[in-house]
């Protein structure tokens, strides 16, 4: 098993932390993992993306070029830029709250998740990224939801444990959206 996931959106949508959570969860499960951010002279609201690899065998290059098994796109520029990186039958998870357009590729499996609406329904617009992650996990089962929760607890630190239930709900709602 090797999952190569591109996560992309605009700055502030939590694509970097979504990637780190998945990477952390993979590490907890003793899988081989890497996380590679885009870095550049970006401004607030500019584009952000990261590449996450979770595998049973050692990770070679942490760069994902034309071999992404999944892309999680939070806004339109990300869809336009990254759908081409997917392998045929790859999972394309689209934030339909902000993306009205259809993907150009017809050889990938697209899922439309109204992540912002779902996040608002459960009371915090900031967890749209976690909703998307929940959908991805349901589709691939690359790590367990429990491991992501475990990772969340470590990343949040002792002061923010009260945010764990909200994030758990976001993961569940994301999963329900692709069931």
């Amino acid at each position, binding site marked *: 098993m090797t999952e190569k996931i591109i996560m992309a959106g605009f700055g502030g949508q939590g694509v970097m932390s979504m990637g780190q959570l998945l990477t952390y969860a993979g590490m907890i499960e003793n899988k081989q993992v890497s996380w*590679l*951010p885009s870095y550049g*002279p970006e401004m607030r609201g500019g584009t952000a993306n990261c590449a996450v690899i979770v595998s049973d065998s050692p*990770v070679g*290059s942490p*760069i994902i*070029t034309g071999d992404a098994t999944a892309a999680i796109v939070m806004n339109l520029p990300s869809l336009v830029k990254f759908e081409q990186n997917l392998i045929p039958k790859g999972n394309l998870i689209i934030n339909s709250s902000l993306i009205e357009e259809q993907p150009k590729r017809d050889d990938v499996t697209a899922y439309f998740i109204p992540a912002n609406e779902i996040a608002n329904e459960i009371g915090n617009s900031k967890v749209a990224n976690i909703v998307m992650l929940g959908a991805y996990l349901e589709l691939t089962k690359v790590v367990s939801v429990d491991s992501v929760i475990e990772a969340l607890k470590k990343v949040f630190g002792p002061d923010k444990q009260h945010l764990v239930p909200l994030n758990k709900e976001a993961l569940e709602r994301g999963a329900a959206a692709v069931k």
Partner: protein
Amino acid sequence: MAKVLMKGNEAIAAAAIKAGCKHFFGYPITPQNELPEFMSRELPKIGGAFVQAESEVAAINMIYGAAGTGARVMTSSSSPGMALKQEGISYCAGAELPCVIVNISRGGPGLGGIQPSQADYFMTTRGGGNGDYRHPVYAPATLQEAVDLTMEAFDVADYYRTPVIVMGDGMIGQMMEPVEFKETTRRDLPVKDWATTGTEGKRKPNIINSLALDPAELEKHNFKLDARYKEMEEKEVRHEMYKVEGAEVVMVAYGTTARIVKNAIDALEKEGIRAGLIRPITLWPFPMKAFKDIPETAKALLSVEMSTGQMIDDVKIANEGKLPVHFFGRTGGMIPAPEEIMDKVKEILGGGK
């Protein structure tokens, strides 16, 4: 100790502290800023000092001063900043001052860009500063290796009384991987009886200096340093061989590029094409002897770099004219894709099978 998920820059900084680094002097530059940031947060907690200098030149000269007291010290920068440090590195080499210097390199020349690059090979292995000196250069390809080699670098620096460079690129600095801080078996290190720690009126003052106006004296000093460099060439060379047995094309690549080359080798294998990799872990001393182990199946060497071709010079020296030496590189912050490298291998073999 359990594994932790860290950014490369932070992992190198944490490894340095674990190795006993107490003082850090630096000046900000992308893509290595998380390293000084980590040091600024953590060093005060252990009674060390973090100083943000007014320039890279100031930082390397603070290294000269602090290393002279016998403390374990580090500075870090990225390519244009490293260019500024070269004078100070030469002075540290001349004055036999142990220190560890990290270069998280980026595209050049000049200010260049901020994306990953390996175009500092010449500057780093050929002596960017003046004079007859060398220093070990470690080129980790994974964050675990970056941690292990950084810790090792402090021992090597103390053992040989030399500056040691740890060179990654922007990708090594910015990516996250799980790392473990292992307890290493330490070398037997000489007492730093040369350090300027105060005589307390009991001994002659130690003098740390790189000026020697008497040519006979300076030559003697140069020969002493050279004997150490020869010992390093004998004892400190490190490399990895990957699927070299039976390979038709043997690639040579280090750091980030070596990881991409491994992907290309695995993909070529699935197409029935045998390729292998010699991965220098020390860029100086260069693993010349590894080239003696290239099997007779090899038809050509291919140096793959994120530059227009710098390490290829060492590959040619090591090859001793035996095999044709080819080159593939991307530069300016562009990262080669496995497919491009595979195409080059097929081209070398005459358009594939």
